[in-house]
């Protein structure tokens, strides 16, 4: 069976949806960060799939590598923020960190 573009896009969509689901539902900040990673990876999958139509310049794959790098940096920054948040609130439960309403 030939793997078609639609299947790639489907996987990307599934990943995106899972990421979204995790972002919205999980209480833990770390889990939310993981959800964000999933979404980034979903976009990576999409970029890779579309880069098949650009065999010479492989711009999509380049983009993905950039994204992975930036995602790593982002994760580092985000985890640092999470650490600060944890120091401040002694919790990583997003439902309890609701000071924005004030």
């Amino acid at each position: 069976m030939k793997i078609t573009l639609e299947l790639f896009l489907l996987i990307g969509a599934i990943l995106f949806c899972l990421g979204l689901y995790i972002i919205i539902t999980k209480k833990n900040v770390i889990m939310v960060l993981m959800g964000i990673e999933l979404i980034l990876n979903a976009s990576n999958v999409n970029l890779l799939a579309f880069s098949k139509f650009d065999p010479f310049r492989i711009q999509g794959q380049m983009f993905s590598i950039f994204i992975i790098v930036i995602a790593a940096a982002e994760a580092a920054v985000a985890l640092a923020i999470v650490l600060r948040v944890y120091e401040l609130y002694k919790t990583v439960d997003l439902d309890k960190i609701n000071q924005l309403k004030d």
Partner: protein
Amino acid sequence: MELNHLIQSLPFSNLAAIASLVFCLPILVFLILLFFGHLIKKSDWIATIGMGLNFVLCAYLFSQIWFNNQVIHWRFDWIHLAGSQSITLGLKLDKLSSLLLVSVTFISTLVHLFSQDYMHDDKQYVRYFAYLNVFTTSMLGIVMADNLLLIFVFWELVGLTSYLLIGFWYQKDTAIRASKKAFLLNKIGDIGFLAGLMIIWTMCGTFDLEALYQLYTTSHIIDGNWVLTYTVSGLVVVKSIPMIWLTVLGLGIFAACVGKSAQFPLQIWLPDAMEGPTPVSALIHAATMVAAGVYLLARVFPLLDYHVLIVVAITGAISALMGAYAATSQYDIKKILAYSTISQLGYMVMAMGVGAFKASLFHLFTHAFFKAGLFLSVGAVIHAMHHLQHTLEHKGLDLHFDPQNVHLMGGLRKALPFTFVIYCVTAWAAMGLPLSTGFVSKDAILAGTLAWADAMSNQGYVWAYIIPFIAFFTAFFTAFYMGRQLFVVFFGEFKLPKVYTNAKDAFKYIHDIEWKMKIPLLLLACMSIFIIFTPNPFDGEAGWLYQGISSVPSAVPNVLINSTELSELTHHYHWIALGLSLLVAGAGVGAAYLKYGRNVANNQIASNYQSNPGLMKRLSINNFYLDYLYKNYATSLIIKVADSIAQFDNKVIDKAINGIGVFYVIVSHIVAWKDKYIVDGFVNTVVFSVSKIGTSSAKIQGGKVQLYFAWMLIGVMGLLIWFVW
């Protein structure tokens, strides 16, 4: 005729300044006595000298006015109402008022002097002089005022001071009651005055007497309406009113005169007013205040239409007769004079009514002097009797006899020779016997009534002859009661020892009066001799007073009798009246002599204790039972009416008000329910829903990041869908 021109301001002159001073001086003395009287030793002399000075000033004013034939008139705007005429105040002195000024201050001065002795032992000595001064001021105010409103103000003030002086001995119950009676009866008349003033203001828009004359003379009778036409600041004003109101107006003002001058049917206060000190009776209730009614009549005389004048004449005649008849059997020495005053004032009022304007005023002045003289000499008698009572008390005889009862007097001519002479002279004038002032003025009035009756009968009113008939009848009674008083008090034997047998030698303790009382008596007696007023003892018209005062022609549009015709007729009747009055006065004195002069002692003692006097005598003693009638019919009727009104108030008006109250309570309950459940409910619903919306929308901003994210997601999806659609 421009009204604003008629009542324009008039400048203040030097003589007006003196007149104002005359007016203010007694007020000043009053205030000094009121506030510092107890600190000053000679407060009585301050009052007396102040009044004497006032008399001198008045005499100066009089000489200026009378001999230079001028009129002092000072007028200024008092109240200026927007869109209406202004109300003016002012001071006006013509011959008549200046003459009255002189006589008022003259008698007032004498009464001050007399009172120094008479009231000497009184605790309220200073207050007495203070009251006398404020009375004099208000009387001068009436005399000087140039408009009816101002006259009304002083009129009330005179009423007040009269009230204060009648009730001067406030410890005496009778005095308090007498003062209240006088005040209330005067008020009944004053209501008429007020009503008259209202009509005058409505019609004429001014109270100024001079302006009123002018307006009246230009008024007309059109179709039974009294029509006045004048301009106010150039705008023509036409006032029309049914003619009856012209009469009502006159009657209203006359009602004030009836009250103040003690005329029928309001005369009953005057005899009771004798409860006041005797000098007060002399000043206020004989010479000046009661004459204010006649003065007012003289002032408004041209404004009275003939219906009013007929009423005036009849009222005067009735009062004259009733007063004279009631005086014939009084036993209180002062009450005889009080009834005599009613009678004499009745004469003056009657003379006004019959158009004998000058005769009335002439009698006003002659009466003022001889009646003041009579009162003061009677005061001297009372004073002597009081002293006798005190002397007897010191001797250990505690007799509580009435010092004013004539039945206890008699033969006093020997004990009080000076008083006797004065009394004789003044009583001579009161009786209307020749060579006295009273004779001349009374003769003028009698001639006036005869002339009026003649003129009236020419117009078809034959009944008018009853007025001169009553007048002559009254003249008879006048001579009779004066003769009775003279004989009973001064002739015969002293009767006190006959009633109180243990006071046998009381007569020798009676002493004649001090010089301070003698001077006023002497001066007043001199003023009762004809030569003061006229060179001819049989004709007042030759006198200076008659020549000086000019009669004012009637200003009302409906005149019944021509005044020139009347004066010609008066001339014609002069000698007839003279003869007749001599005849009746002589008859009166003769009758008094026959009844009381001969054999006085037995006769009097007998009649004093006569158990069952005849009807005529009882009518006389009780003044025709007027007091009784008023008390039992008028007063009780008023009380009944008041009771029924109170009942109506309780039963109907209070009930209605309570019903309305209940109704409102019910309505308010309904409104409260509606407020609570409908209005408040609506508001609460709004509040509730707004708060619900608030809380539900607040949840959106719950501070939960994931929720924000979810909303953002929904938003982006929405946008996408919207774009793609």
